[in-house]
Each structure stands twice: as C-alpha cells, then as structure tokens.
C-alpha cells in the first residue's frame, strides 16, 4: 500500500485527473446494507445472527469511514490543487458526510430498537411483520464475502449494545472534528447527476472517468453476480473453441 501512496503523492501535483472512488463506493454500499439490516431489527427476522451481522457491518462501515476521512481531509487540506479539483473533492466530501450521517442515524436507531427488543427473554414480543427470510446474503454483500461466519456468544444482544453506545459517541466526535477541520460549504456543491439520472446506466456514480489515480485501499472482491457473469463468458469461449477444433478436425478427417 505504501507503494501506491507514493504513486499518489507523486501524481497529485503533476496530473490533474479525477479520483477513483472505490472506497467511497464501498462505504456507500455498507451504509445501504446496514440500513437494510436495521430495518429487520425487532421483527421476526431478528435473531442472534442478525445482531452479529449488525455488529460486523457496523465495524466495517466505521473502518471505511475513517479511511475515507483521512484521505479526503488530506486532499482538501492541500493548497496546491486546481479549482476544478477542489470542486470535485468537495463534492466527494459531501457524499462522504451524507453517508456518515445516515450511518450515524441508523446506529442510534439500532441502539434504541435493540434496547426495546432484547433476545434473551421469550421472544414473543418480536413483531410479526411478514418477513421470514434471513439477512445473511445482505450482510455477506456488505462484508464482501461469500458466506458469513457466525461465531458470537449467546448474549451478543446485550453486550453489543454497550459497544454500540461507545461507537456512536466516537462517530459523533468524528463528525464534529470533520466539521471543524474541513471548511467545505455543502450547499455550494453542485451535483453531477441530473434529476432522473438513476434511470440511466448503472455505472457507479462515484467515478467521474476512467484510468486514474486510485485511493489506496483493499480491493473489494467481485460480487457474486459479477463472478457468475465472468464464468459464463469463459465457458462460452471454451465451448466455441471446442466447437471450432471439432470442426477443423472433422474437416481434416474428411479431406484426408
């Protein structure tokens, strides 16, 4: 990672290309999944597993948030950037802060609901909302893994709440610091997306263009859907190759 850091610092001053925002996209993805999981809290899809999923997703979200914050703060503090670059970084900053705000609200709500619906007591108080499936796949998507492993204790629902409280306080503090240290006027930022942009292609919105400086991060694994897609293409290629070879052999046999 240090290598790419150097690459970044070297290029930052010389090249004025937009930034690839995979880390920001990852944070966005994890925030969306976290919200999805919190919606299931207190209902009949609530379980020990869900609490563990919540905990893991939350921790991942916080890691991403801290990483994003460090990178973006360093970018914004740099005085030698062009006006366009600065505008772009400010736009990313607004994306980042909105994500963290959503995350914070969801964390607070999950604390409240978690306290109201403990799992230890006989669970007849869990609301029967009609959702019966598990949320494993969602959590797996958030954590960027194939399958979730569950290894928590039985009393995770009470223990986790205390941790959650401290984490909420940490996030609050981080947001305050962010507001103090980084002078970005959110209302001055203009979005790149028009109204109705979501109806168009599903390319990640964070990217402004291709072939760029990448923010140092762990490369997320391809999604399950993506993998199967590749596999399909690969299989197709092999199949056509086999067909071709069979055809050529047949031709040779006939001719020879």
């Amino acid at each position, binding site marked *: 990672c240090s290598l790419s850091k150097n690459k970044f610092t070297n290029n930052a001053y010389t090249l004025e290309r937009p930034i690839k925002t995979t880390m920001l*996209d990852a944070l*966005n*993805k994890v*925030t*969306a*999944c976290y*919200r*999805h999981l*919190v*919606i*299931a*809290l*207190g*209902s*009949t*899809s609530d379980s020990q597993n869900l609490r563990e999923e919540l905990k893991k997703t939350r921790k991942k979200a916080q890691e991403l948030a801290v990483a994003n914050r460090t990178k973006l703060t360093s970018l914004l503090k740099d005085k030698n950037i062009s006006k366009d670059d600065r505008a772009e970084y400010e*736009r990313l900053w*607004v*994306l980042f802060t*909105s*994500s963290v*705000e*959503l995350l914070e*609200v969801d964390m*607070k*709500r999950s604390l*409240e*609901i978690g306290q*109201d*619906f403990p799992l230890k007591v006989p669970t*007849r108080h869990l*609301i*029967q*909302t*009609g*959702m*019966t*499936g598990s949320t494993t*796949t*969602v959590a*797996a*998507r*958030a954590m960027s893994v194939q399958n979730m492993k569950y290894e928590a204790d039985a009393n995770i629902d009470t223990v986790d709440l205390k941790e959650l409280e401290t984490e909420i306080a940490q996030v609050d503090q981080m947001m305050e610091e962010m507001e103090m240290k980084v002078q970005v006027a*959110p*209302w*001055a*930022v*203009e*979005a*790149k*997306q028009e*109204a*109705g*942009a*979501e*109806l168009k292609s*599903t390319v*990640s*919105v*964070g990217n402004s263009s291709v072939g760029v400086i990448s923010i140092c991060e762990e490369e997320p694994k391809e999604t399950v859907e993506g993998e199967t897609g590749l596999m399909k293409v690969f299989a197709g290629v092999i199949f056509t190759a086999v067909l071709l070879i069979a055809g050529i052999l047949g031709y040779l046999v006939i001719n020879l």
Partner: protein
Amino acid sequence: MSTIINLNQSTLGGMERMIISMQDPDMGIKLRNQRLLITVIPHAMTGLDIVEWLIKKCSISDEEALHVGQLFVKYGYIYPLKEPRNLILKADDSSYRLQTPYYWMSTRWPASELDYAIYLAKKNIRKQGELIEYEKECYNALHKRINHTWDFVVMQAREQLRASKQRRKGDRIVLECQEQAYWLVNRPPPGTQDSIDHGPERRTTNTRVQLVTNGLSLKYLLKRTLTITICDGLTCLCVCARSYVKYCEQYQPHDPIMQGCLPSNPWITDDIMFWNMNSETVALPTKLRVERWSFSFMELLNDQMGRKEFLTYLEKEFSGTHTQINESIHNPYKQYCFLAPGASRWVNIDSKTMEKTLEGLKRPHRFVLDDAQMHIYFLMKKDSYPRYLKSELYKNLLARAIVPQETKKSVFPFMRRQRHSSPSPALATQTAEDDGKAKYSNSNSGTASRL
C-alpha cells in the same frame, strides 16, 4: 376522529405496548397468510379481527374499538394491504399487517428529506420513471432543495435496491410495502389528512407558495429566498418603526415631560391652573386638547368635552337619531328601543345586522346587541367622525381654543411661589384621631357628669 394529535413519548409507549400484545402468539390476534399470485406472505390480519380483539382486550364498545384501531392505522403501526393509500381501518375482511419497529412513529427520528429523496429515487428506478404526479413534484422540489447531495441520493438508492435484491421475493415485497406505508404516513399525498403534528415546522411542499424557478440553480434560488425573507422582515420592521415614529411625532407636543406643559406643571410649581383649564366642564378648551381630538375617534370619545361637542354636531346634522345612538354605544340596552320595529326613532343599520339582532332578541342574551353596536360604531368612525373634523363647528372651536400663557417666573426669587410639600398623611390621621378622642372623651365626661 379526525383530530390531529400531538405525539409525545408517553402516548407512543402505550401504542407500542398495545401493538406488541396485539401480535402475541397466544393472546394476540390470529394471523393469516396473504396469498399473492405465487408468493405466500404470512402475518396478515383482518380489520374485523383487530376490532374484536380491541373490544375484548380493553372492554370497550364497538365504536371506540374502531376509533382506536383507526389511530393505529393513522400513525403507521398497522398498514392496509389492499388499498395502501387509504389509511383507514375497515371492520371487515380487508387485510392489514404490522409495521416493523424501524418505521414506527418516533419523534426522535423525524423522517428526513434525504431519506424521502432516496425513497423517491428508488421508486423511480423500480417504476422506470412512472411516478405519481405529486411524487414527481416532490422529487423535483427535492432535487432543487438538496441538490448538493443528489449524487449521494442516486448512489444510495441504487445500493439499497441491490441490497434488497439479495432477499427472497416475499421479503422484498414486504419491504416495499413497509416503506411505502411509512412514507404515506410521513409525507401524505395532497388532499389526505396529515396525522402528524409537526408544530411550527411545516414541511409539506404542496402547501408552499411555488416560486417560479424555471431552471434556476440552487445558489440563485437560495439567494433569492434569502433576500425575500430579509426584505419581508425588513419591511415588517420598517412598517412598525414608521408607525411608531409617527405616533411619537404626533403625541410629542402633548407629552408634559417632553414638551413641558402650559401654563406650568402643577407637580413642580404647585399651581393647579393646568388642571383647571383642562377639566371637563370648562367653557373653552385648550388648543392642544382640541387638536388631540383629530388624532383618532377614540380620542374624541374618551374626552368628555369632545363627546359633547360631537353630539352637538350630530344633533345639528341628523335630527337626533345618531345622538341617541352614540349614547347607546356606551349603553347598549338603549338600542333596544330603536331596533324594535315601529320605534319612534329609526336607526340607520343595514338589513343584515337588523335581521340578526331581531333574531337574537327573540331569545335575548347579553351579547345580542353587539352586532348592531359594532355596526353603528364603525359607521360613526368612518363616516360621521371625518365629517365632524371638517365641519365648521370643529374649526370654530379650534380657532377659539386658548393657548395658555406660561406663567412668568418672577425675577425676584422671593416673589416666586415657594414649593412646599403637603402635610404628611400620617399627621392628618393623627389629628383626626385626636379630635375623635376628644369628642369621645367629651361625650363620656358629659354622660359621666350627668350620672
């Protein structure tokens, strides 16, 4: 049933507790399955079951149970499945489902604009751009209002949809229904009742005056809104300030402290000529006093002399009707004589007020003549009073009014009236007591002597 209730924490707790007991597997309502085309979703209840359970649990009447059930639906704890936009409880076999705790009404987490924008964006994607009219308007309004985070809205909407694709079909349907129900409660469509009392923050875009924007950017819109608000505020201040200044200017010559009073301030010089000259029964009023009558109608009426003058004027103009009426402003029951049809004197009020008053007189109460009184008062104020001010009578009086001379301070100090404080009240009472005692002792001695 259609009252808007202000939610507070204790009400919430009660409703939530009730919901929890409602869906208790043993003691709660029997839950059925909802059959859609191929999917079966459990945990649905019929309206009739809900009402019956409420009757049994709370020992209340039919009507009351229906009303309580309505509250649950109105505040989003239960949502209807067949007609989601119609947030009422029907006591028949229409199905309802319970809302997940995340979407329960909570005053701590009011629905935010960002969330609503994300929801609309998601709906836009799902419906391929076919949003309902008012949703389209809200969407566009939000796009302008929170334009700076619109990229985030789009990103998050896409991610949330991708996350929900990971669930089974049945769960996905439930998720959509839940979210829709939540937003129908928190952002009701125009024309439906808004159950939540948001207090002074009004957040419906539909009721706001629409600014003609036509593609203005957010910055300009913001600036414009700010200037309008400031201008309005300033205008208000200006108007207030202006009227205040006008009032001060008008009354300044009449203020003894600011302008001094003629002939002299009685409190300073012990000369009560000022009060004598301004008493109610003086022959000629002072000029200032007469001028004051022209400030407003109330000034004229409050001054005894002014009132008398006005009455004289009215007597001259109209043969006596209005004079009596003017008196009756202060004594409303006199009006009764004139309003009765066939009265010796007619009263000049319009037919509507006449009808209303006559109606009221059939069942008389304290305020039955108020309308007529009001009408007459305004008639005087708008009509007779300005004419009086322009009349010869008033102008003559103004010309004849005296401007008292300021008492000349004599050159020699010892010639000036010395200021002396009046005797202390304590002394006065003591002397009275002494007198009383003396009288008493006299009488006593008198009687004693007789004995």
